[in-house]
């Protein structure tokens, strides 16, 4: 029996190879993605997922990349780092992807990082924190601005306005606490003094106690809130409730979405934050190098997804096009060659800013990628730098 079944296997294998061979000739390039489409980070993963699908279809309709159609494999980790790691292994071992975009959060990214670094497959993360690219891992890149940059941008603005004594209020979630640390580290460089510090839980429903303490601290010239989700919306509302409007409130780029304005309501008026150009696409001056790209992306996303654009989907857009450009330049689907080309990305204009990567900088954005915005009458306006 054994020899017969073995022979049968051979025949089947041969048939598969014979059939599979020609199919291979019509090449596809497999790109993997693990996103938090559901779960607590779904507000990140959902627009990222939509953006990737939308633009991969577009690229394929236009003939693909370097003659190859893109095949996109997306897994939903539900915001769970353990699941993300399992999917990462599956992408490498079963799907044999040539590159990966994703990891919606810093947590899922850090869990998947060793898998891709070990398999030597390029990995463009959509997670926020600076730990992803500092220290630099050879195969790991990211597109979103870091929390450190947000702190620096805010402090730059504060310094210009001669507001040097600030109160820091931070969410205790991963994003909020990481940014709190970065802000504390960056403050002395800008001559900013943090007079008092408060925290709140990501699920807290009332922050008046913390804000009352800040209100009663003498000499506070501005308040900086690091956090995302619904926490900052409640902080903003409590801030207005306590009548603290005379002291400017700075928020992080984590609240850069229309839903923040909706949730915070009229209380959001006067809130200042650093954000990508995408949010104010229509208001950019025509000579802005990012104008065309952000207006196009906004229009495409809103027409297809039927929901307001968010910067998070924009990060996925940037990741996809950085990768596609690299594949084109490499003219190969060898992950190692693609990695080398991603690292050589120069002058790439994306929704997040102008990307110039280098062997020591796997993000490639500088502070000009952020614009200081202020919320006025339920909309974003560009803040004119104070001269």
């Amino acid at each position, binding site marked *: 029996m054994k020899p017969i079944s073995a022979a049968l296997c051979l025949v089947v294998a041969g048939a598969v190879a014979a059939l599979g061979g020609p199919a291979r000739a019509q090449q596809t390039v497999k790109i993997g993605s693990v996103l938090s489409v*559901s779960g*607590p980070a*779904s*507000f990140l993963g*959902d627009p990222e997922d939509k953006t990737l699908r939308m633009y991969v279809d577009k690229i394929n309709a236009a003939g693909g990349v370097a003659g190859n159609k893109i095949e996109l494999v997306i897994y939903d980790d539900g915001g769970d780092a353990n699941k993300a790691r399992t999917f990462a292994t599956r992408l490498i071992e079963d799907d044999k992807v040539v590159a990966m975009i994703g990891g919606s959060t810093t947590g899922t990214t850090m869990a998947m990082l060793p898998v891709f670094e070990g398999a030597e497959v390029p990995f463009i993360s959509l997670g926020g924190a600076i730990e992803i690219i500092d220290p630099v891992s050879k195969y790991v890149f990211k597109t979103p601005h870091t929390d450190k940059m947000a702190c620096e941008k805010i402090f730059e603005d504060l310094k210009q306005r001669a507001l040097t004594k600030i109160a820091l209020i931070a969410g*205790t979630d991963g994003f909020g606490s990481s940014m709190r640390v970065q802000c504390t580290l960056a403050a002395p460089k800008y001559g900013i003094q943090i007079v008092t510090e*408060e*925290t*709140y*839980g990501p*699920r807290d*429903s*009332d922050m*008046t*106690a*913390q804000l*009352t*303490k800040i209100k*009663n601290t003498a000499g506070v010239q501005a308040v900086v809130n690091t956090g995302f*989700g*619904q926490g900052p*919306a*409640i902080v903003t509302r409590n801030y*207005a*409730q*306590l*009548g603290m409007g005379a002291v400017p409130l700075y928020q992080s780029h984590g609240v850069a979405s229309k*839903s923040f304005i*909706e*949730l915070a*309501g*009229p*209380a959001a008026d006067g809130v200042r934050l650093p954000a990508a150009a995408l949010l104010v696409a229509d208001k950019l001056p025509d000579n802005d190098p990012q104008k065309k790209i952000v207006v196009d992306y906004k229009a495409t996303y809103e027409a297809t997804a039927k929901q307001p654009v968010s910067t998070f989907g924009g990060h996925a857009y940037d990741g996809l096009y950085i990768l596609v450009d690299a594949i084109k330049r490499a003219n190969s689907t060898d992950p190692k060659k693609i990695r080398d080309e991603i690292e050589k990305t120069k002058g790439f204009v994306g929704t997040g800013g102008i990307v110039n990567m280098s062997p020591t900088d796997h993000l490639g954005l500088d502070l000009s990628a952020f614009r200081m915005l202020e919320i006025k009458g339920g909309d974003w306006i560009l803040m004119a730098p104070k001269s």
Partner: protein
Amino acid sequence: MSEFVQFLMSGLTVGAVYALVALGFTLVYTASDVVNFAQGEFVMLGGMVTVFMAALGVPLPVAALIAVAAAVCVGLLLYWLAIAPSRGASPVTLIIITIGASILLRGAAQVLFDKQFHKLPSFSGDVPVNLLGAAVQPQSFWVIGGTALIVLLLYLFMERTVLGKALRATAANRLAARLVGINTTTVMTLAFGGSAAIGAIGGILVTPITLTSYDVGTLLALKGFAAAMLGGMGNPLGAVMGGILLGLLESFGAGYLSSTYKDGIAFVVILVVLVAMPQGLFGRRSVERV
């Protein structure tokens, strides 16, 4: 002084919501010995259904009524489909069933509604009221007043109506209650429906302040359960006092000590109380009379 009043009002508002959740726990627990961990989901349903009904153009009061009715239906279905068929199972089994139900409800809400945060307009505007130097949202008065009204109505129901007395009798001794002709099934149905209604009302009252999303129930169930334990499981007065105490502990802890450790402070106090008085502040001593 103004600082103190600010912390006090903040604590009372948050505490009132914990109290309503704790009250829901207590109602079901007294009638059926089940700790219903889906209690937080009723709060979520109250807020979410109102938000989505209001978005469809339904006037707010009607939307709120629909939300309460929807939550009561879910509460009754939970009893009829999950709890009643497994009657006689150990309390641990029943608790696990309710945890399963809460996961199911959360998942269903995620699919049926969405994953975003939502808010409701405040019932009487957003202009803060100045109370002894503290700025208080008008909605806080709705939350505190609404809770007080529910507690009062529940008290009158338990003390003055036959059905309420039947509920207390069932709580005291189920077998004896059945022997004197009380339909304990009706009583339990009532407890599940009632606790769902209380949770939903809490959810509607608090959504203008705290916002809502499909997963707000988890934390509220945890805090409400802690409040019920603090006050003494099975005692309605204890549940209310426990909830308000927990809210005040958090608010004063954040205000006067450290906002980072405010949850820690609250839970340390609860632990100390429970070590000293295992029945909770107002709990009955569980003495078996022979």
